[in-house]
């Protein structure tokens, strides 16, 4: 089993290397102008330069911080609200229609609203990230709480657990697989919106870095930013995966 996994990992690495080599070949053959597609070597050089001068690291840190802040906001709100809605039929009926109306709104559609409310500020970007990442968290949490085995609630009653203890010890852990799946989606949404928000509001970060590089025809810098975005997405998926594996250890039975 372990050997199999290693083979797969090696395979995925090979695909990645092949893509980079193809990119290099296309760029060297000048099939696309280097103004639009610089070879990976130059992108790498730009990345190294950016890291050495510390500029790109600072942009990256800005984006990471923004993404995590917005996502954390969405998570806290999403889990709290989701728990309320998922455990209470009344709340589901009262809030359901409003949520159904808000849910399909694309986050980009509320960006102008957010700009009108908060201006081109950091708060605006955070608000947009929070709004966008809220939905996957909220819906997953509602689902998780609504799907708790009814027998376990009965066990809680028979043991005389308080309402709060039932939520904390029975419902929340039972909903955890769903919540983590929502967190994974929410983190992706947060990353996308952090980039878009930075571009629109001109906040310091990778999104803005990419936009400015594109306007100045600094293609290697632009691609360095894009690569970092990709790596950031990959890293956040890895982290959630680790948390999932730890928190859901009991499922591997």
């Amino acid at each position, binding site marked *: 089993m372990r050997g199999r996994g290693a083979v797969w990992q090696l395979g995925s690495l090979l695909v990645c290397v092949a893509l980079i080599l193809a990119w290099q070949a296309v760029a060297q053959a000048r099939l696309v102008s280097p103004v639009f597609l610089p070879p990976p070597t130059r992108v790498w050089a730009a990345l190294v330069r950016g890291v050495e001068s510390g500029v790109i690291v600072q942009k990256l840190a800005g984006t990471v911080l923004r993404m995590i802040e917005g996502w954390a906001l969405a998570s806290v709100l999403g889990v709290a609200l989701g728990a309320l809605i998922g455990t209470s039929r009344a709340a589901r009926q009262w809030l359901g229609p409003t949520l159904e109306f808000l849910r399909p709104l694309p986050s980009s559609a509320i960006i102008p609203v957010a700009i009108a409310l908060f201006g081109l500020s950091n708060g605006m970007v955070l608000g947009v990230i929070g709004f966008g990442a809220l939905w996957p968290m909220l819906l997953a949490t509602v689902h998780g709480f609504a799907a708790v085995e009814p*027998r*376990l609630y009965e066990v809680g009653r028979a043991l005389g657990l308080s309402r709060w*203890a039932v939520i904390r010890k029975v419902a929340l852990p039972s909903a955890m697989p769903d919540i983590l799946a929502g967190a994974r989606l929410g983190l992706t949404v947060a990353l996308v919106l952090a980039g878009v928000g930075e571009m629109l509001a001109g906040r310091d970060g990778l999104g803005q870095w990419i936009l400015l590089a594109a306007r100045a025809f600094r293609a290697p810098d632009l691609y360095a930013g894009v690569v970092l975005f990709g790596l950031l997405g990959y890293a956040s998926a890895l982290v959630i995966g680790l948390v999932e594996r730890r928190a859901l250890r009991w499922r591997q039975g």
Partner: protein
Amino acid sequence: MTAPIALRNVGLTLGGKRILDGIDLEIARGSFTCVVGPSGCGKTTLLRLVAGLVLPTEGEVQIGGTRVVAPRRDVAVVFQDYGRALLPWRTAAGNVSLALEAMGVAPRARPARIRDLLGRVGLAEHADKFPAQMSGGMQQRLQIARCLAQQPEVLLMDEPFGALDAMTRQGLQDEVLALVGDSGATVFFVTHDLEEAAYLGDVVIGLLPHPGRIARQVAVKLPRPRDQLATRELPEFLRLRRELFDFMRTAEA
């Protein structure tokens, strides 16, 4: 001394349907009462009334002289579907701990109690296993350990061994007899296995359906301790078995 369990003219109507009618019952302290009857006659419902999980629409249920209006900590329930009644994300130790937490046992006092309780049901070696890693018999033992953690005056068991194979079932029957013999708890045991009822009980109660009512109350005059081979060969056991089979045949007709 007041009977630990007393039902006075208890009736239950749910959604316009008469489920139990005119139940009068007194159960002596420390006795073992088995309830039999055809499927759907209201055995589980009767147990849930005693547990305080459902409240009667007429009459009243008393435990230790006080009216039951909600589940009590000194009344423990072993559910038939052990697979759903255990927390899958907690280990065996964690599941027992849930009852101790509900009882307000200090965290420092818990490990020793847990070890003792798991030892009493023969799960000392399996404290760190998750329910999914345990056999059905082990899971049901774990549920019993969790109930013993409540130090119950009254132990309610709803077809606890119904889903287990014959060998496991006989083993657990003897374990339960030994455990309640030690603790002095009053047991209310629902089963559809007539031999099991005769083997375990001091009294066997026969219910008739539509609406569920008590039709028969049979005293079991078999010596204790009971023995899987010797007891089941006694003429009195065979006579009882015959009486219960005849009752069921007329009840189902």
